[in-house]
C-alpha cells in the first residue's frame, strides 16, 4: 500500500515534468517511444519465459531438479528474499491476512502464572446467548454443591446443564429486572469437592454416548455454535469444530502459557471433539512465530497457520477462510481452556473448573496471568492489585475491544479468560480532536504514531474521542477486517432490516468480536457490535 502511494506521488510529480519535457520531444514522438518501449519489454519477457520453462523442463527430464537447486534464469522469490516464515510452521498451511490492526496498549500481562485465591464464583445465565432470562434453577440458597453439580438449565433445551465451576455453598441468587436471574453465587469450600463419574464412555464408542456424557457432566456449554455464537445445539451435527490457539486481541493472555502442563488433557479434548463432527477439528495456529510445542504436537486435527494482525487470532476469521458457515451449515467453536476442561473430564471423570486468566491493563500494578476458577469474583481478583485504588477505572471481562464492562462487585463471564482495567476517560480535552497532547492508539495517518515505532505501548482510556456521526468514511472497515465481507453495507442492511442482504453479505459469518476492530477504527464512532448483535438476534428470531 505504501509503495503504491509513494509511486502515485512520484507519478503525480512526473506529470508536470512531462509537461516541460514536451519542449524537447514533440508529443506524438514521446507516445511512440513509450509504446515502442512497452512492446519491446513485452517481447523480452516472453522470450525469457519460454527459455525459462525449457530449462525447467530439461532439469526435470534429467532429474536434476530433485537436488533442490534452482535451474531457472529468473531466480524465484524465495531465493531473492529469504523466507520470513519461522521454523515449525508448515508452509503449505499458511493463510496470510493483509488486513488488520494491532493495538499495542500498556499493561500487557507478564509471562508468569501466579495462583490467586477467590472466595466466590458466580454462574451468570446472561453469558449464554439466546438463553431465556429465567432459566430453571436446580438449587436454592443455602444448598451445598460440588464442582460439576447442576445449577440451572434452559427451559428450551433441558438437556444442557449449567453446573457449578467449584464446590461450595449457594449464598445468593441475584435477580434483576422482572426477576431475571443475574448471578448464582457460590461461596467456595476450603477443600474442593468434585462430582465424580466412575464410568467415562470410551472414545471409540457411539457419538451419542459422548454427547450425553458431556451434557450430563456440564462441559457442553463450553462448545459454541456459529452462526450466532450460541451454546452448541446437541441435536445438530457440525461440519467442523474450530479451536484457535492464539489470541491477537489487545493485552490478551498467552494461550501457550495458559495451556502449559495440560498437554495430555488438551490432546484428549481434541480427540473428543473430533468424535463429535463428521468433518474435522481445525486448529488455528499463529504463523508469525514458531508455534509452541503443545499446539504444534497436537494430532488428529487439521492445523492452519495464520499470519496477520488482529483479528487474525479470532476463530471467526479462521472459519471464514477455512470453511464458512451459513444458516444451515453450522460449525462449533471452543477455546483452548475449554478443550482442556473437556479433556480433563474424560481423563479423570470430574468437572474441571480451573482457569488461567490474564490480569491486564495499566491500572493494575503487576499485570500477569493468574490461576483461579472460571467465573471468578472480580472483587477478589483485584484485591491488592490496583496501582491507584482511588482512581475512576473500568473493569472489563474480556479484552478492551469485545469485552463487557463489569461492576467491581460482579464476576468474570463464563467464556472470558481476561480481566482488563483501564482508566475512565470522562474528561474534556482542549482541542483534543485537532491537537492531541498525549499519544493515543489510532490507525489514522493524521496521528504521528508511525514515528513512535511498532513497540510503543499506548495509554488507553475509555474516552470516545469524538461523537457519533453518520457513516462518512468508506473503506476503513475493509482495511482492518481480513474477510471477504463489506462491513459497511452489511451494517446498513441490518439497520434497514433487509433480510436478503443481511444473509447475502455474510451476517452469519460474524460475531461481535470479529467486527470489534472495525468499531475501534470507525471515524464516525458507530456502535457496530450492537448493530451486528441486533441483526443476529433478528435473524435468529426468524428461525
Amino acid at each position, binding site marked *: 500500500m505504501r509503495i503504491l502511494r509513494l509511486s502515485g*506521488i512520484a507519478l503525480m510529480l512526473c506529470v508536470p515534468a512531462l509537461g516541460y519535457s514536451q519542449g524537447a520531444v514533440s508529443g506524438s514522438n514521446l507516445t511512440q517511444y513509450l509504446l515502442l518501449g512497452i512492446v519491446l519489454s513485452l517481447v523480452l519477457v516472453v522470450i525469457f519465459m519460454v527459455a525459462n520453462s525449457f530449462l525447467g523442463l530439461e532439469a526435470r527430464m534429467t532429474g536434476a531438479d530433485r537436488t533442490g537447486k534452482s535451474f531457472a534464469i529468473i531466480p524465484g522469490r524465495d531465493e531473492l528474499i529469504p523466507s520470513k516464515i519461522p521454523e515449525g510452521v508448515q508452509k503449505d498451511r499458511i493463510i496470510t491476512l493483509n488486513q488488520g490492526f494491532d493495538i499495542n496498549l500498556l499493561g500487557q500481562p507478564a509471562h508468569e502464572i501466579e495462583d490467586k485465591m477467590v472466595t466466590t464464583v458466580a454462574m451468570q445465565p446472561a453469558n449464554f446467548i439466546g438463553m431465556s432470562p429465567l432459566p430453571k434453577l436446580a438449587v436454592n440458597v443455602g444448598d451445598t454443591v460440588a464442582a460439576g453439580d447442576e445449577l440451572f438449565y434452559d427451559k428450551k433445551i433441558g438437556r444442557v446443564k449449567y453446573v457449578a465451576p467449584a464446590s461450595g455453598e449457594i449464598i445468593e441468587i441475584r435477580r434483576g429486572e422482572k426477576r431475571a436471574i443475574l448471578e448464582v453465587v457460590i461461596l467456595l469450600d476450603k477443600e474442593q469437592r468434585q462430582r465424580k463419574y466412575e464410568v467415562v464412555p470410551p472414545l471409540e464408542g457411539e457419538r451419542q454416548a459422548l454427547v450425553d456424557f458431556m451434557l450430563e457432566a456440564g462441559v457442553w456449554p463450553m462448545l459454541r455454535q456459529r452462526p450466532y455464537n450460541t451454546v452448541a445445539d446437541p441435536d445438530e451435527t457440525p461440519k467442523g469444530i474450530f479451536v484457535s490457539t492464539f489470541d491477537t486481541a489487545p493485552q490478551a493472555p498467552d494461550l501457550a502459557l495458559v495451556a502449559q502442563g495440560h498437554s495430555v488433557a488438551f490432546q484428549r479434548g481434541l480427540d473428543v471433539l473430533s468424535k463429535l463432527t463428521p468433518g474435522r477439528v481445525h486448529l488455528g495456529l499463529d504463523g508469525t512465530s514458531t508455534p509452541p510445542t503443545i499446539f504444534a504436537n497436537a494430532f488428529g486435527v487439521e492445523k492452519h497457520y495464520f499470519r496477520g494482525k488482529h483479528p487474525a487470532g479470532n476463530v471467526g476469521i479462521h472459519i471464514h477462510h477455512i470453511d464458512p458457515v451459513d444458516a444451515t451449515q453450522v460449525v462449533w467453536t471452543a477455546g483452548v481452556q475449554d478443550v482442556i476442561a473437556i479433556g480433563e473430564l474424560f481423563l479423570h471423570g470430574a468437572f474441571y473448573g480451573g482457569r488461567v486468566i490474564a490480569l491486564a491493563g495499566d491500572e493494575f500494578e503487576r499485570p500477569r496471568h493468574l490461576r483461579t476458577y472460571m467465573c471468578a469474583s472480580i472483587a477478589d481478583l483485584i484485591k491488592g492489585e490496583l496501582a491507584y485504588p482511588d482512581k475512576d477505572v473500568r473493569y472489563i471481562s474480556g479484552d478492551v475491544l469485545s469485552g463487557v464492562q463489569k461492576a467491581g462487585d460482579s464476576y468474570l463471564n463464563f467464556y472470558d479468560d481476561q480481566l482488563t482495567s483501564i482508566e475512565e476517560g470522562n474528561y474534556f480535552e482542549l482541542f483534543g480532536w485537532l491537537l492531541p497532547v498525549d499519544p493515543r492508539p489510532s490507525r489514522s495517518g493524521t496521528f504521528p504514531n508511525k514515528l513512535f515505532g511498532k513497540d510503543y505501548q499506548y495509554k488507553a482510556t475509555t474516552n470516545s474521542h469524538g461523537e457519533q456521526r453518520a457513516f462518512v468514511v468508506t473503506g476503513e472497515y475493509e482495511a482492518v477486517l481480513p474477510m471477504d465481507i463489506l462491513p459497511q453495507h452489511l451494517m446498513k442492511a441490518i439497520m434497514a432490516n433487509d433480510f436478503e442482504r443481511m444473509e447475502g453479505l455474510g451476517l452469519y459469518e460474524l460475531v461481535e468480536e470479529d467486527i470489534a476492530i472495525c468499531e475501534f477504527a470507525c471515524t464516525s464512532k458507530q456502535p457496530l457490535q450492537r448493530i451486528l448483535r441486533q441483526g443476529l438476534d433478528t435473524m435468529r428470531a426468524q428461525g
Partner: protein
Amino acid sequence: MKKVAEYLHNNAPSKDKALLHTAYDAFFTFAFTPNTTTANGVHVRDGMDLKRLMVHVVIGMQLLYFFGTYNIGHQHFVALGEYTGFFEGVNLKLAYGLIKLIPLFVVSNAVGLGIEFWYAAKKGHSVEEGYLVTGALLPLIIPPDLPLWILALSIFFAVIIGKEAFGGTGMNVFNIALLARVFIFFAYPTEISGDQCWVAGFDQIIAGASPTYGWFETTFFNDWIFGPLGWPTFNAQAAIVDGYTGATPLGLAYEGGWERVTEVYTPGQMLWGNIPGSIGEMNKVFIAFGLGLLLITGVASWRITFSVFAGAAVMGMIFNWWGATPFMEVAWYNQFLMGSLLFAAVYMATDPVTAASTNTGKYIYGGLIGMIGLLIRVANPAYPEGWMLSILLMNAFAPLIDHYIVEANMNRRKKRLQLRRAGVTTDDEEAIPVPQVATA
C-alpha cells in the same frame, strides 16, 4: 482548563432553546473534545473523529487559499498592465485578493453553516462537520467576481435540496460544493463561463475598460494605509491594455490547440497557476502538495484520485489518436496542466459520501470520472471544462456501481457455500492439501 471546560459544559443553554443549544454545543465540542466514554461495545476508540478528518482536508487546501488570494490581485493588475511581475505590488495584490475572497468565504460559511445549525436544532442532534469542507472548497472553485447573493442562493439550493432533504451529512447523493457550482452554472451561466468572468474587478474585459473600485480600495487602503506608508496605491484611472482577453488555457485550446495555448501562456505559468481562472484550482504544484498530505494521512482515497488520473490519461490518448480537432491533438499529459483536472481529482472526486463506497467500485468510479470529464472538456463546444459535470454524473451512478459490487460479493459467498455443500473446494485460500489423519 478542566474547570473552565466543566463550567462551560454545565452552563450550556437549556435544550428548550434548540437553536441556541445546538450552536453552543457545536462551538463547545469544537473547543473541547467531549467527555463521553464508550459504552456497550469497544472500550477503547481510535483517536480519529469526523472533525479531525474534515480539518485535514481544509489544512490541505491552505496553500491554495494563500496562492488563490494573491492570484486574484495579480490577474487584476496584469489586465491593467501594471505590476506585471509576480512579486511586484505585493501589498496591492494581497489587499485586492482579500477584498474579493473574504466576502466569498464569509458568505459561503455563514449561509451554509447557518442552515446546518438550524436543521440540527430542528432535528435535535449535534451539528455534523460535513459543511466545514464544503464551505472551504466552494470559494476555491468559483470566479472571484461572483455576486454574493448568487453564491448565497446557490448554497441555499445545494444544502437544502442536495443535503438536508436527503438527511444531512453522510446521506447526500451529490457533492454539495459542486451542486452549488452547477446551480450557478445553469441559473447564471454568464457569471461562471466564458472568458469574461475569471479576472476580477471589471464590468467587461475589453481594452480601455477601467477597474471598478469601491470604498475599500480608494479610501480604506489608499487613503488610510498604503498612502501614509508611502506604498503603491490603487489607480482608478488605469485601463485594460490592448490585446488583453483574459482567456483561459482551455478556451485557447478549443480555438487552436496546444499551439494557441502556448502562444499566450508558458507551461510553467500553467504549472504554477499565475493565470486567470477559478480562485483555487490553478496552482498545480500546491494541489500536488495537498494530494501528498491527503495520501500520507490517508484522509482521501488514493484509489479514486489515481483512477481519475488514469481515466483522463486513457481518454487523452484516445483523443490524441483520433485527432479530429485541434483540442483533441493536445497531448494527453498536457491536459493535466490545464483547467481543474488535478483539483477535481484530489478534492472533489474523493468526497467519501458521494463516491462509490466499495474499494473495487472506487476504481470504476474514478476511472469513469476521468474519462467522461475529459470527454466533456474536449468534445463539448459550449463549455470547455468537464469535471464538475462528470463528477456529478458519476455521483448519480456511484450507488449503481456499489450495487453491482455488493451483488458480486453476495454471489461469490453463495457460490462458495454451494461448493462447500457439494464437497468441492475452490478459491486460493483452499489450496490446502487434504490432511493426513495422524493416528495416535
